[in-house]
């Protein structure tokens, strides 16, 4: 057999200028960045402080960065699709079908797995241990490994842009179309290995966070004192633990079909493709709530903080969260009402689906009453939250409409569906991501993001969203189905033009976001936050310095009620003094470790080799992975110690800033 398996010069699409140029640009940019870091001598710093870091805050930041980069990639895909559909009326457009199919598949895959998931996991990583009042997650090295495996998946998907092709069968590639017979190229294989590898990372994240939240909390932090964000993180991670194995198993079956000639889902030898659709949605529906729940958590924090009130109906919120967590596992058939399971099955699953609206509705009303009687400050995060409340309610409503089988019989796979899920995903996940980033950015870096550019980004995003996706609702009602590379129906064309205009507005939003970051970094001294509490926050992450020291808290906070930090602040203001200085003790922290990076390195090699059937390289990669495992198991020292006086020094700085804040507060004479 060929030494390089199926890989050859022809794998690179020399004849297709668009991906080639795009790929070249990405790689030149990547190369430039790498070259710059090496030349400037930043590599040792990067290696020491970031690549090998096992600090949950650093990992959270890296996840978020990955998500933003992938958002841009997914956005470029979106621009291509919208422009193609704008011009492909009775015309072939500029993207041939085999290419167009890869674009929407890549867009969906990247957006869900490598933008939305890392965005949420990134925020959870950064925030959850801080809000629980502890020093790190349960398994810090595993945490780093999770991140790097996710990055591996993202890398593989992006390699497919230049070397070979990507999955042409949709973001959930239904067999038999995705079987070897109908998709003989390597596209589906790229998809499978990227998701199998990153899926392991996500599963480990789930395990890590469930354990963290259930077992590692500050003294006094009982379950019913945790923030709602921690609750939603718990629910989301429980769902990851329960749902991602289903994805892995299903994709493994398709992989066996494609690689070893099994017949799970083939047309031949008794295979049953309906089983794939059934199983993938048994993961798929929980997945959308894995994304939505942490977003709800972000908004709970934001709305309460900027209304200057505790969250209304905390216990209801907790109950609704866990309710959604469970009910999400009972609705998956609503994605294939039209496959013909019959009236009883459709009816039951339709009803179960609509019941989710109860849990979500409760949340909406609780946020509403949180604002009631508040003193609302419309800082950027709060704007995102308002945009979310309005937009998500509409998207949720269209979702419930799709849960009505006769309606779905007409709207399934139409652009109405596309509009529904962008409606909930963009308002529910993207807006939450942006709100969360703006809200916690000062915590992570010690300075705020620029408000003006942030608000501009918000308004462009909101308007851009409506202009892009409302027309798709109409097109769907006009019978336009999704994934069309071209079409001949005149009534659809105007709506496609409006949607294309919407994406122009979206592009302005992107420009504002980037400008916001650049401007904020330039003017970081003006935007500096010394107190560690720029928004008058209510939960424990605001009790420590910005950026927090490696150990988060010099002494673990003593939690005595809901909203512990708000209580500490009140006490300080009432007594006009900070709590007495603690007796500092040395702190042990986990040591940095390259394990995650090395594991990802070898899994990239193994994955690539599997995609191209380079078997010797597969063997090599697996052997190396085992070697890393043993090497990691052998290491003796897992922790290092920060001496007590270093802890004291760091904490005294923080206390000085807090004392100043208290002084200022006294003079301002403002009640808490």
């Amino acid at each position, binding site marked *: 057999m060929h030494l390089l398996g199926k890989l050859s010069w022809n794998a690179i699409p020399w004849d297709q200028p668009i991906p080639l140029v795009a790929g070249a640009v990405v790689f030149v940019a990547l190369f430039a960045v790498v070259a710059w870091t090496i030349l400037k001598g930043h590599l040792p710093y990067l290696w020491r402080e970031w690549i090998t870091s096992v600090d949950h805050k650093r990992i959270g930041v890296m996840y978020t960065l990955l998500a933003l980069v992938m958002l841009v990639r997914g956005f470029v895909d979106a621009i291509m699709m919208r422009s193609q559909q704008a011009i492909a009326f009775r015309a072939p457009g500029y993207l041939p079908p085999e290419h167009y199919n890869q674009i929407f598949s890549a867009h969906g895959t990247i957006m869900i797995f490598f933008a939305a998931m890392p965005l949420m996991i990134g925020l959870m990583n950064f925030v959850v241990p801080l809000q629980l009042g502890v020093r790190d997650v349960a398994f810090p090295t595993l945490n780093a490994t999770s991140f790097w495996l996710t990055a591996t998946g993202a890398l593989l998907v992006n390699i497919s842009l230049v070397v070979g092709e990507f999955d042409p069968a949709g973001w959930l590639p239904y067999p038999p179309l995705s079987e070897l017979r109908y998709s003989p*190229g390597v596209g589906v294989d790229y998809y499978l290995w990227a998701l199998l590898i990153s899926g392991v990372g996500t599963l480990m994240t789930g395990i890590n966070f469930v354990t963290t939240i259930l077992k590692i909390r500050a003294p006094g932090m009982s379950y019913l004192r945790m923030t709602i964000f921690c609750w939603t993180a718990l629910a989301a991670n429980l769902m990851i633990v329960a749902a991602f194995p289903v994805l892995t198993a299903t994709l493994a079956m398709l992989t066996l079909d494609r690689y070893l000639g099994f017949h799970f889902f083939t047309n031949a030898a008794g295979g049953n*493709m309906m089983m794939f659709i059934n199983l993938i949605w048994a993961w798929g529906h929980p997945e959308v709530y894995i994304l939505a729940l942490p977003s709800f958590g972000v908004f709970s924090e934001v709305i309460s903080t900027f209304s200057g009130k505790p969250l*209304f109906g905390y216990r209801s919120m907790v109950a609704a969260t866990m309710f959604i967590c469970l009910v999400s596992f009972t609705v998956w058939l609503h994605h294939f009402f039209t496959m013909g399971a019959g009236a009883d099955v459709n009816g039951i699953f339709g009803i179960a689906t609509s019941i989710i609206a109860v849990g979500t509705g409760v949340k909406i009303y609780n946020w509403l009453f949180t604002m009631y009687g508040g003193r609302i400050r419309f800082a950027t995060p709060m704007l995102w939250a308002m945009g979310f409340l309005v937009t998500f309610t509409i998207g949720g409503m269209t979702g419930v409409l799709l849960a009505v089988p006769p309606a779905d019989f007409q709207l399934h796979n139409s652009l109405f569906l596309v509009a529904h899920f962008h409606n909930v995903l963009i308002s529910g996940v993207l807006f939450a991501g942006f709100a969360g980033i703006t809200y916690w950015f000062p915590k992570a870096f010690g300075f705020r993001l620029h408000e003006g550019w942030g608000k501009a980004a918000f308004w462009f995003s909101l308007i851009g969203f409506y202009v892009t996706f409302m027309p798709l609702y109409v097109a769907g009602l006009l019978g336009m189905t999704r994934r069309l590379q071209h079409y001949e129906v005149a009534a659809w064309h105007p709506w496609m033009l409006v949607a294309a205009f919407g994406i122009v507005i979206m592009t302005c939003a992107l420009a504002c976001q980037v400008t916001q970051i650049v401007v904020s970094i330039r003017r970081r001294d003006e935007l500096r936050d010394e107190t560690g509490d720029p928004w008058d926050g209510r939960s424990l992450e605001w009790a420590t310095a910005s950026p927090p020291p490696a150990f988060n808290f010099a002494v673990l906070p003593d939690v005595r009620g809901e909203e512990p930090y708000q209580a500490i602040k009140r006490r300080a203001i009432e007594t006009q003094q900070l709590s007495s200085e603690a007796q500092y003790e040395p702190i042990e922290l986990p040591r940095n470790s390259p394990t995650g990076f090395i594991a990802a390195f070898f899994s990239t090699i193994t994955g690539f080799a599997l995609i191209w059937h380079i078997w010797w390289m597969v063997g090599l990669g697996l052997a190396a992975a085992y070697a890393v495992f043993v090497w990691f198991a052998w290491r003796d020292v897992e922790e290092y110690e920060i001496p007590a006086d270093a802890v004291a020094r760091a904490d005294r700085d923080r206390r000085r800033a807090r004392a100043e804040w208290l002084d200022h507060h006294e003079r301002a004479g403002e009640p808490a």
Partner: protein
Amino acid sequence: MALLLSLAGCSGGVLDPQGPIGAADAKILLNAVEIMLAIVIPTLVAVLAFAWWFRASNTRARYLPDWAYSGRLELIVWSIPLLVTLFLAGVIWIGAHDLDPSRPIAPQRKPVEVQVVSLDWKWLFIYPDQGIASVNQLVVPADVPVHFSLTSATVMNMFFVPQLGSMIATMYGMVTQLYLEAGHVGDFYGESAQLSGDGFSDMHFTLRAVSVDAFAQWVAATRQAGPALDRAGYIALSQESRHVRPFTYRAVEPALFRAVVDREFPAGPGPTGGTGGPSVHPAGAR
């Protein structure tokens, strides 16, 4: 939203139904939207109103910094969505049963039988009682129920005529059932609603509803001309092709549809290669 709905009416979509099934689907769709709007609109108004009134700069608004619980409100918060959902649940249950695609429209009226085979990338319509067939063009009598039995020669597709109502999947080796009826004479756009590969965008067809007499005439005319569809012809047809102009077969081998369903033909061959095409051939794959 309501504006969008009205825009989408009366221009050839699902809100401009031309048959009883489509009309019922659309009715339920609109009813469900109305039920939900009754609660969603007040919610949206309240969101905006609260946000406006309780803005920090409004000194007239009362500030309740500790107000975070009210048992009565809590109850309302749960019961409003619960009641709406209960209502919807009834709609869902009844709708799912009354409009199940495989449910005959009117048992006393004998439907026209049409057998549908989705191929790469075109539609084959077989009229078993008339012994004819057509590709990418479906002619049915108006005001008469049509009973479709559907299957696929290759990958999954979804048979859908938006103005007539419900869609249904077509799958290899399986038969799904669908009843539709065109209420008027007219041409209706039909398509596949399930991605089926590179030629997917071309999987559209025209459903022509004609008067009963015109249908009989069409059948008679069709019997006079065109090729006959036998097994060899079917295998030729099942090769991949795009943009197939509509045409008809003057005769069809009688049990062809059953032979397709019973997997007497191998599944459609699929493309010959993609990038990094097949270099391994798993033993069992035919």
